[in-house]
């Protein structure tokens, strides 16, 4: 130490520095921090990148061929060749129903006995039964089966009749903008960044601070010369660094492992992630200083931050289709704005009409939450 009285600013910096050092050491020493700061993001990247896919593949179905004609076998063949299905061909409906009841197949395509005869007359029917429990898969099975049947029907028609049955109808030609390969990773991987930042920022912070409250070490900090702002700063900085680390990990995985395009600017991406991380850390701090119990704050943090980030952010489920009340609630979920930003910055580019409003909301929420946290922390001194 020098003889000259240190300026107040330098003293402040030294106090904050000491707190940050203490907090960082605590994070580094505890193996559970490693679990949540490194293992969990890596695990989530692998799961979201490789395991989770909404694309339907290998759905087990049974095709019942009651008609031995070649037209009927053609329909069965089109299912057998498709990568969407794992097809079992049976001769009787009873057998197929037993497979469905025991959960071995998800759907039945039944080509009835009189199929060939009636398709010559132009009024044949193919019956499709799906297990509707997973409605999404069921719908895809239905749509695919209808297409396969229509194709086979068109062939039958071309061979048999002279009428221009295929003509005179509109056909859909689709273009999927921003994701022309229709790869579900394109939206799962950016969404993952939201989840990881939420976990590190909110979940971890709330646990750590709640523990300090539970053990009384937080109050002990108040009797030291450290001010409230400095305590908060000391608590925030290590988790900001950890959160940004997780974010960079995801970004690298997105770019090099999953080849998700990053069409917007990376500095803006980092900037808005920082904003959302700040919001998450503030939420974690606020919840833990309000509840002061580890179990309660961890559960409340999960329910208030993580679950909404997964379910109410527009990450997986489209928010335009939810009832008004839930849509109104979703406006209170900060993750919603971040998901919008990420999806746009990754896939669409720098669309300022999306970036400005969403970033402004995140910044405002961060300021409000930090102000609340400051009040909640100071009040308990009195």
């Amino acid at each position, binding site marked *: 130490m020098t003889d000259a009285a240190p300026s107040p600013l330098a003293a402040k910096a030294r106090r904050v520095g000491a707190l940050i050092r203490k907090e960082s050491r605590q994070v580094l020493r*505890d193996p559970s921090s490693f679990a949540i700061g490194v*293992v969990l993001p890596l*695990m*989530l990247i692998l*799961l979201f990148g*490789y395991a*989770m*896919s*909404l*694309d*339907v593949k*290998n759905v*087990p179905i049974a095709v019942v061929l009651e008609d031995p004609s070649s037209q009927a076998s053609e329909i069965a063949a089109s299912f057998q060749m498709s990568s969407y299905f794992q097809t079992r061909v049976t001769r009787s409906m009873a057998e197929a129903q037993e497979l*469905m*009841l*025991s959960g071995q197949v998800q759907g039945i395509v039944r080509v009835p006995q009189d199929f060939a005869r009636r398709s010559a007359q132009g009024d*044949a*029917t*193919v019956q499709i039964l799906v297990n509707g*429990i997973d*409605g*999404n898969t*069921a719908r895809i099975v*239905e*749509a695919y089966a*209808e297409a396969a*049947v229509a194709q086979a*029907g*068109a062939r039958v028609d071309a061979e048999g009749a002279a009428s221009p049955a295929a*003509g*005179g109808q*509109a*056909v*859909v*030609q*689709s*273009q*999927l*903008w*921003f*994701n022309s390969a*229709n790869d*579900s990773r*394109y939206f799962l991987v950016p969404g993952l960044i939201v989840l990881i930042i939420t976990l590190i920022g909110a979940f*971890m912070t709330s*646990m*750590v601070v709640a*523990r300090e409250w539970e053990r009384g070490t937080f109050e002990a900090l108040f009797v030291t010369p450290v001010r409230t702002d400095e305590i908060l700063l000391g608590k925030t900085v290590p988790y900001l660094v950890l959160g940004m680390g997780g974010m960079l990990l995801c970004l690298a995985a997105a770019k090099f492992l999953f080849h998700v395009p990053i069409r917007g600017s990376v500095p803006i991406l980092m900037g808005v992630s920082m904003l959302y991380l700040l919001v998450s850390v503030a939420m974690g701090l606020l919840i833990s200083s309000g509840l002061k119990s*580890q*179990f309660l704050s961890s559960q409340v943090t999960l329910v208030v931050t993580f*679950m909404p980030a997964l379910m109410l952010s527009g990450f*997986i*489920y489209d928010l*335009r*289709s*939810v009832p008004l009340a839930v849509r109104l609630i*979703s406006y209170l979920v900060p993750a919603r704005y971040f998901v919008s930003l990420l*999806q746009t910055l990754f896939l*669409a580019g720098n669309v300022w*009409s999306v970036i400005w409003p969403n970033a402004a909301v995140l910044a405002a929420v961060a300021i409000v939450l930090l102000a609340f946290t400051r009040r909640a922390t100071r009040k308990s001194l009195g």
Partner: protein
Amino acid sequence: MLASLRRILALIRKEILAVLKDARTRNMLLLQPVLQCLLFGYAATLDLTNVPYAALDRDRSTASSALLAKLDGSGVFHRVANLTQAAQMKPLIDNQTALVVIQIDPNFQRQLSAGEQPAVQVITDGRNSNTAGAALGYVGAAVDSFNTDWRSDHGLPQPPVQVSARAWYNANLETRWNLIPALVGTITMMSTLMLAALSVAREREEGTFDQLLVTPFRPVEIMAGKAIPAMMIGTVQATNALLVAQLWFRIPFAGSYITLYVGLILFLLAAVGIGLFVSSIAATMQQAMLYAFVTIMPFALLSGLTTPISSMPAIMQDFTAINPLRYAIDLVHRVYLEGAGLDRLVSDLWPMAIIAAVTLSAAAWMFRNRLG
């Protein structure tokens, strides 16, 4: 034997008091399943009810307006803009005003009348390719219905093969019918596993675990005393979630409650076993909670709750074999919606029994050896 039973009962009573004496914890444990089911029951739907779309109708004919009228009348689409040139499309999609743009080329009606196949261009916002795919499916259905009308109005024959599709157990293919029963398992697992993981860690952190050891309790009795209260709370939570499913969402219950609860209890045993095992390796509450969380995440994501197991790569599908939640979700679905009996559920029951046996004995072994 009787004395042992009395000791376990005393421990259960103490444990339940310890968890439920705090009003905030009590409320959270009981209300959380209800709130989550309500919220996610409304939020988590892959069915679209509101798709904003823009129309670029270059034909302006009776046929093109009939096609757009099909979309407008579907109750799903609402038109946010009528475009006149292709350049107007990009900003609408970019700033998410429209999810879909329908472009109808000039000569649409002329081509239809000539027996050709005019294309309807459908541009969708692929930022969430799942939503975009669903929207495309709805457009396809509207176009099909337009085609059927057009052909019957112009005396053209219908396609020679018709498809009659029917869905078992969930006739309208509502996502909610799939999701809420799955949440019964997921929510219960989250709380039960956490409670079990924390129960021992709390005693250890507060130093009361050593006191417990000098009492006449045997390690197995301590385990039972920790496991049963967590399972009781889990059962109450599952019941709450089931009540929401039936009384609020009115999802018809097809099976038997006895079957369902037999399955759930087996599932809770497995969840508690995992929780106690986590508890045995954690030194503090915080570690217990974080480890529990790191365990729950892959279980929840690889359970079939959000994405179908059949779409996962083979190695991940193999991993789901040790995931009790996967069996629980399948079991609740099949009892709740299909009305399956125990005989049809054997393939779900025995894996859960094995998981419970393995994790509970591993936890018991850890406790005995760590104490020894």
